[in-house]
């Protein structure tokens, strides 16, 4: 028997997801592992009294669209958009096939999990640096930073 802290569970799932992703291996497994890590990290971030990715996303929604969606509903909506639900749930009435962009969704699920991970543990671990470097190069980091700088101050600050 092993005693494992939730932090270690999230770290191992996320680290393996990043490794699979950067090695060009199975995108479906990246999505499921990063999705599971996200769920655990969300609880840990809230327990630490910090702002989780989903709560920041709700603030962005309020700014861009108006209105703050319910936490659980919005979280499920994002899980569906990122392909997480299609990989771990199949109801009796669900269709046999599903349309996915596995490459983009795998990158995006990792981005969400890494956001919560860095909120708690910083950016020093090798697998975190490796993903952030990949994202900087492949998703036009400089342009994203410019867009971030021009966002309203309330969206540039993390709530504690």
């Amino acid at each position: 028997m092993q005693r494992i802290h939730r932090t270690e569970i999230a770290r191992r799932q996320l680290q393996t997801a990043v490794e699979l992703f950067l090695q060009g291996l199975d995108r479906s497994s990246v999505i499921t592992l990063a999705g599971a890590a996200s769920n655990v990290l969300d609880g840990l971030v809230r327990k630490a009294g910090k702002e989780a990715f989903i709560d920041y996303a709700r603030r962005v929604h309020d700014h861009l669209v108006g209105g703050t969606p319910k936490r659980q509903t919005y979280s499920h909506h994002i899980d569906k958009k990122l392909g997480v639900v299609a990989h771990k749930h199949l109801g009796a009435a669900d269709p046999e096939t599903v349309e996915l962009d596995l490459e983009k969704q795998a990158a995006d699920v990792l981005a969400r999990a890494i956001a919560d991970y860095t909120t708690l543990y910083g950016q020093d671990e090798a697998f975190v640096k490796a993903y952030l470097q990949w994202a900087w190069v492949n998703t036009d980091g400089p342009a994203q930073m410019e867009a971030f700088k021009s966002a309203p101050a309330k969206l540039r600050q993390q709530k504690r």
Partner: protein
Amino acid sequence: MSSRHYTRFELAHSQLEAAIALYITNRDRLSAITLAGAADVLLSQLVLRAGKQNFTDRVLEKELATGRAAITREVLGREVNDMLFINQLKHFDDDAQDVIELDVDQCALAAILKALANYVDLPEHQRDLVLAFKLWVQQNLDPKKYNIHCDPNWTPPPAED
């Protein structure tokens, strides 16, 4: 980057294959539990859609035959998943403990075997994946502890205190 349609079987197969690779290489058996668990959710439903009993149905039949009070497939499925820590590895409820205690190797092996039991009941399954895992089992697991040759007359050893 582009979208295309995937069958649920394809999504399940990819995850099960990765779970087996992570398990037999001992690269990350904790993640193997999560992947096999997710694959099995899809496979269990696909087996039902094929008009067959899935793994949980077969366990349920045995449980009822040994006198257990009637329960549903869903309740038993949750019990099995809880026993294998599949849910605890992908959720963190407000009232949950920070630390969980589990035998990672045993849970990963059982989660993969459960998913494989459903996988082989589907016509699209890849025989090579099943045979490769079976060969690994025969060469690496203790024959006194595990039924590595799938002998129907094999009996498990008495439980340790």
